[in-house]
């Protein structure tokens, strides 16, 4: 168990008989209360297919039912049911090559991180661009690991934007993802990158619309929406 931020925690699960997964897939967690009541939610797999354990990173939604349990109450040694891996659409394999553009908001970074971890573990040098949006610098998931991955100079570039204020000396952006930012991060639509966008619904809606306006083909844009509408 690793606390990633004040609101998010990574659980590394030992899963007997795990059949393996592709980066970007998710699984379902099912919790059963003593009275038999069950609640089930989906969580993206954060770990690379090459890793021995299956990692989830769960962001705590304060009035939520399942995430406060997984990101708060669970202790090492607890067991719960999972199902998966699930999903064949929002996936990237090193053999797919590049270019790829990954755009993540909040915990939407999780399945994209699985792709980057897989890319590194598989020794891929595919052209990959990651654009991460978080509220504050303290909400950024996997910060140190992303810095390490970016410093490998193997074809990965990482851009970060903060939407609720930037600390002194911040080198990234300080606004919501917009067309100019997507254009700058690239690759250009003419390079026909595979694009993966993941995060809260309003974030995904806005980013996907901007990508279409920039000329990216709708079929190249893969989306995964977490959580409710609104915002």
């Amino acid at each position, binding site marked *: 168990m690793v606390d990633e931020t004040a609101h998010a925690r990574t659980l590394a699960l030992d899963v007997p008989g795990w059949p393996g997964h592709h980066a970007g897939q998710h699984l379902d967690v099912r919790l059963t209360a003593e009275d*038999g009541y*069950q*609640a089930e939610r989906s969580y993206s797999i954060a770990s690379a297919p090459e890793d021995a354990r299956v990692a989830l990173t769960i962001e705590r939604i304060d009035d939520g039912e399942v995430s406060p349990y997984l990101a708060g109450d669970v202790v090492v040694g607890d067991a719960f049911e999972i199902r998966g891996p*699930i999903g064949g659409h929002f996936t990237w394999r090193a053999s797919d090559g590049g270019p790829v553009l990954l755009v993540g908001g909040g915990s939407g970074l999780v399945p994209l991180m699985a792709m980057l971890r897989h890319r590194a573990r598989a020794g891929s040098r595919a052209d990959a661009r990651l654009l991460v949006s978080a509220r504050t610098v303290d909400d950024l998931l996997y910060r140190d690991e992303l810095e390490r991955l970016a410093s490998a100079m193997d074809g990965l570039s990482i851009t970060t934007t903060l939407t609720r204020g930037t600390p002194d000396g911040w080198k990234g952006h300080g606004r919501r993802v917009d067309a100019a930012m997507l254009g700058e991060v690239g690759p250009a639509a003419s390079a026909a990158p595979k694009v993966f966008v993941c995060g809260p619904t309003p974030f995904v809606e806005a980013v996907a619309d901007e990508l279409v306006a920039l000329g990216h083909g709708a079929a190249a*844009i893969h*989306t995964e929406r977490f959580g409710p509408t609104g915002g």
Partner: protein
Amino acid sequence: MPPFTRGFHGRPRRPDVDPARVPPGQYVVEDFPVLSAGPTPRTPIDQWSFTIQGAVDAAQTWTWEELNALPQETFTVDIHCVTKWTKLGTAWTGVSVDTLLEGVGTEAEYVSVHADGGYTTNLPLEDLSDGKAWIAHTFDGEPLEPAHGGPARLVVPHLYFWKSAKWVRGLTLTVDDEPGFWELAGYNNYGDPWREQRYWGD
């Protein structure tokens, strides 16, 4: 029953929700979440049309005006998404698929639904007939928003909601069952929420 999860109690059960209306594994939401595989298509209604084709005597196409000139039904149903949310008492207006199928002669037993963005989903024809399905363009008295499938989506409330194709553009009647987008990607071919038919093998 699996072993219980230490320390998990769940949310207090809502006294206002009739448990008989909530399929196993679902929780009731008040908002209206969105699930789609790509960007939201936005087709202007003057370029929108709806076609029934495939194993039929003659293909038929309706423009937006023609669809709206057909008899309209307003109906209130519970909807169940495979991602576990259920929304009770949703109110829609649209055209019953029965109305569209009235003049269509076919021996086909399956339907492949197609939609803008290349999305497809399949289901038995009998699951679309006899008052079980509509092409809906209005939600809660307002034009259906693009994010929820506007200008028009299929609504088949008795199956998981991925069968209710957003941005729907037509039905292709088929003799053989032809799995669609999510059905090829690991989701159950039929998708009955009451039997928790989420994935392959359920």
